[in-house]
């Protein structure tokens, strides 16, 4: 168990590291988030709906051999 002082010193070191993290502007971050979503949206079935051919939940119909 470390003393309160030791724990706080550790926290200071940790926070100094976190403060020095390289950041980018929110505008740039948003641009890239938008780009990712838009690039992948067309194949996202929650956006487009599940097409009959790719629907794993449909009931299997029995075949009638004539």
């Amino acid at each position, binding site marked *: 168990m470390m003393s309160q002082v030791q724990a706080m010193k550790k926290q200071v070191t940790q926070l*100094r590291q976190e403060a020095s993290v390289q950041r980018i502007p929110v505008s740039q971050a948003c641009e890239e*988030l938008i780009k990712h979503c838009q690039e992948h949206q067309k194949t996202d079935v929650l956006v487009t709906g599940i097409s009959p051919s790719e629907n794993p939940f449909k009931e299997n119909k029995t075949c009638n051999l004539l």
Partner: protein
Amino acid sequence: MPPKDDPETAKLKQELQALIEQCKGLQKGFSDTTLEAATSSAEDLPRIKATTRRMLKGHINKVTSCHYSGDSRHLVSGSLDGKLIVWDTWTGNKIQVIPLRSAWVMCSVFAPSGNYVACGGMDNMCTVYDVNNRDSSGTAKITRELAGYEGFLSTCRFLEDGKIVTGSGDMMITVWDLEAGKKLDQTPAHVGDVCSMSLKAELNLIVTGSVDRCIKLWDVRTLKCVQTFFGHEADVNSVCFHPSGQAFVSASEDKTSRLFDIRSDQQVCIYRPPTANSSLTCCSVSQSGRILLAGSDDSTVHLWDLLKGEHNGNLQGHENRITGLSVADSGIGIATSSWDNGVRVWG
């Protein structure tokens, strides 16, 4: 407890406070726009149409968690009835029923390979089962029982078949070597119970949400905390990476869901249901990352356009609190678990 801080402690407290203010100031400096403003010209999202495709019946008590296998077909659920059930979500059939030594299961997860499932809870243990091998009684063989927690197991994720990372009520995160049955690494993670975890394996990152209202980003190879995110005003119940790897979403007792961006190091959006009167218990994103899903104490799963922040309806059907939410990797299938004893698959 001494009534007054000694000079060294007082100085450290001041330094910590100053560093926190510095971090907040730096974040603000990069906050040159809002997500709402940045996405105002993006196309609107059409109304999401998803319905219950499967009702998975079998548990006879509250279901506390569910998680998809990497094959987007099999699902594991854990319930206070003391069982794990492995389901084929396409047919709705039970593949296996695994009786547990403790009924107080809080989390259940599938290894992406589909070969193992792990669970744990108030037994303060994490137990791993081999889905492909049965023991003499015909149920899945226990591969490992991991003890050594001083609190309940709240969350875990397989890093690979032989390695698992866990979050627990003793505020720790722990990485285990399953073949050796030994702890590889462990660290105090939060100043409150660790409630939830999300893994972005390709980037070696995990995010953890806690009762201490913070969310932390960790390098899973070193268990060093990279960044800490603030914003929530109550327990963070759930966290989930955005598929881009650049951001993650969260759900909280404070009745909001939020989006945090990693590289700008801050919260960039807040999402509220139209009548925000219930805790949000679990969250996830659709395959493209465009849609945010959050399960609620109000028995529904709320949906939002993640980019524009607009509420887009909810998935209705469960009759009690939603406890778990899992989106299949393929994007086809959203599983939910509930206190109504049921598990549903939506799409």
